[in-house]
């Protein structure tokens, strides 16, 4: 029998984790980057060799936040912007669970921005998969906190007047332990970045530049999914290469790879230590 191609093997793995029956067709537009993220997340989880029962995937509201519904784990589709706060409760209550949040740029950085920075600050062991498509997809193309200045959204009909922020810098400044960026074009790199995040004991963020051709692409004349992926290919600059280049050469580029990776005590670990110390102290007293 012929060996299955690398591609076919990768897709077999994905099928093993999709929910059977009823859940398909999915709600996404064909060609949306979110499908790539789904595949990559599954492969990364698969590489951990953990039981499906010990994995929780939590999300807010948005096209990206629909992702958990399709995959066979403990899944919690919550309210807009709040996924990280729900995930915090799950993780603190049952630290043995691997807790993953799938979110969008609006969900995570606008309405959920406060929960996001405070989860970084606590360095709680949650992996946030941020699908950044620079737009509010689900509600039909309004600008988001990552929409570039001047780009169009339905609520920025004359171009966005605001400046975007960079979620990776925000996460690093707020105290995250692992921060990486990739794109839906660079799938192999993406698999690695997510795996790195999942393996990190502490707060990890993987920002993924994803295409929403239906709204961002159309409103900004950036064309179809293929053109948008080509744009990603052309403008992504791996951090190793970027370090060697002068700033002028990086002007129209965005940096990909592991941007930040530090070891420090994780929140639940600290709490466990407190519980043990209090128990010891009470034993000594009695």
């Amino acid at each position, binding site marked *: 029998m012929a060996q299955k191609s690398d591609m076919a093997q990768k897709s077999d793995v994905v099928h093993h984790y999709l929910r059977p029956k009823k859940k398909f067709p999915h709600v996404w537009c064909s060609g949306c980057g979110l499908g790539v993220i789904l595949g990559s997340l599954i492969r990364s989880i698969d590489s951990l060799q953990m039981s499906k029962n010990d994995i929780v995937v939590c999300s807010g509201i948005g096209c990206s936040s629909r992702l958990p519904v399709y995959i066979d784990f403990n899944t919690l589709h*919550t309210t807009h912007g709040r996924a990280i706060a729900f995930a915090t*409760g799950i993780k603190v209550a049952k630290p043995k*669970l691997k807790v993953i949040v799938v979110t969008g740029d609006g969900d995570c950085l606008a309405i959920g921005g406060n*929960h996001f920075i405070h989860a970084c600050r606590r360095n709680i062991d949650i992996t946030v998969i941020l699908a950044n498509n620079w737009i509010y997809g689900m509600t039909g193309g309004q600008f988001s906190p990552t929409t570039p200045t001047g780009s169009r959204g339905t609520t920025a009909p004359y171009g966005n007047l605001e400046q975007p922020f960079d979620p990776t810098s925000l996460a690093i400044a707020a105290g995250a332990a692992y921060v990486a960026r990739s794109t839906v074009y660079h799938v192999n790199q993406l698999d690695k970045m997510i795996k790195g995040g999942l393996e990190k004991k502490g707060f990890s963020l993987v920002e993924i530049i994803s295409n929403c051709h239906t709204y961002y692409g159309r409103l900004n004349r950036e064309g179809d999914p293929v053109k948008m992926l080509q744009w990603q290919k052309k403008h992504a600059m791996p951090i190793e290469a970027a370090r060697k280049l002068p700033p002028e050469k990086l002007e129209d580029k965005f940096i990909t790879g592991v941007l930040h990776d530090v070891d420090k005590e994780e929140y639940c670990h600290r709490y466990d230590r407190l519980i043990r110390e209090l128990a010891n102290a009470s034993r000594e007293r009695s």
Partner: protein
Amino acid sequence: MKRVVKLLQGNEACVEGALMAGVRFFGGYPITPSTEIAEGMARRLPTIGGRFIQMEDEIGSIASIIGASCAGVKSMTATSGPGFSLMQENIGYAYITETPTVIVNVQRGGPSTGLPTKVSQSDTMQAGHGTHGDYYAIALVPSSVQEVLHFTIKAVNLSERFRTPVILLLDEVMAHMREKVDIPNPDEIEIVERKRPTVPPDWYKHFALTATGVSAMASFGDGYRYNITGLIHDELGFPTAEPSEIVAMLDKLKQKIVKHAESICEFETNGMEDDPKVAILSYGIVARAAKQAVIIAREHRLKVGAIRPTAIWPLATDSLRKRLKNVRQLIVAELNQGQLINLMKQHIDQRHTEIIPLQRYDGEIISPGQIFNKIKEIKHHGSEI
């Protein structure tokens, strides 16, 4: 066993009750007059293997306790008006996802920042209709520090039994006043645990339609993998837009509360035995004044009674009407501009029972004397008491 009696503040009694009921996770954000509950939980929980987290706001607090409850741990938060407002969207989420949670709202004067350190009952309506959409709430209203302890246990029990958020509605005075509290022995109290599934994972439905309206609940990590969503969902927890499934789910959520109104909401009465024609209806701290007013009135040979519900959501309306059968004038006393009174007008036949308001919203409590004056006024207007 030796009885343990303590002098406790309402908020402290709430902490005791929660720990006895098995609460092992608390997510909260400080706000007067509820803060002592968070402080007590922060101190006590880690000493018994539980966990406390101070969240970044109240939206996060309620989200965290829903998450913790999904992970199988009894969970609670505590707040006051402004925080309670912030929690509303996720209270609806706990309701639609049938996740047991307890929310303590220590009422203070509102709206907005209002009167942070003053007593009020102006969240009476919000407790029942705060979140958007059709929603059937449970809100318990204790009236002594002793009851705060017992009702906290009851709130946890009801949330587990019905798989729903339960609100414990206190007020600033109840939270801060100190009273003697009999600490029950653990074997004297009933502790309810949510029903766990016994079927194999393949058969499990997280939102099964059952005869009682309540279905077994697995926790994350137990080997039952399922989806939870705040979208209208089918029995398996997947979003649905099928009209019959929508109706089945909303009806189930409603019926499991409404059908049990008579067991959730009880009544305490004082001086109702000899069928007085005038009675006072109130809840919480005001019911304490009403009880005293009945004593004063009776000393003045005025036949008056008092009645108070132990829950305002849902109200046991059948029992209420039965108890008010002979009452011609009902004084509804409350610390707001008229909320409980509207509920009463909805449920009581005003051709038979006149409803008389007694409202105070200046940050002070209604005194027994104030109620007694109202009774005298009624007498003065020619009513036979």
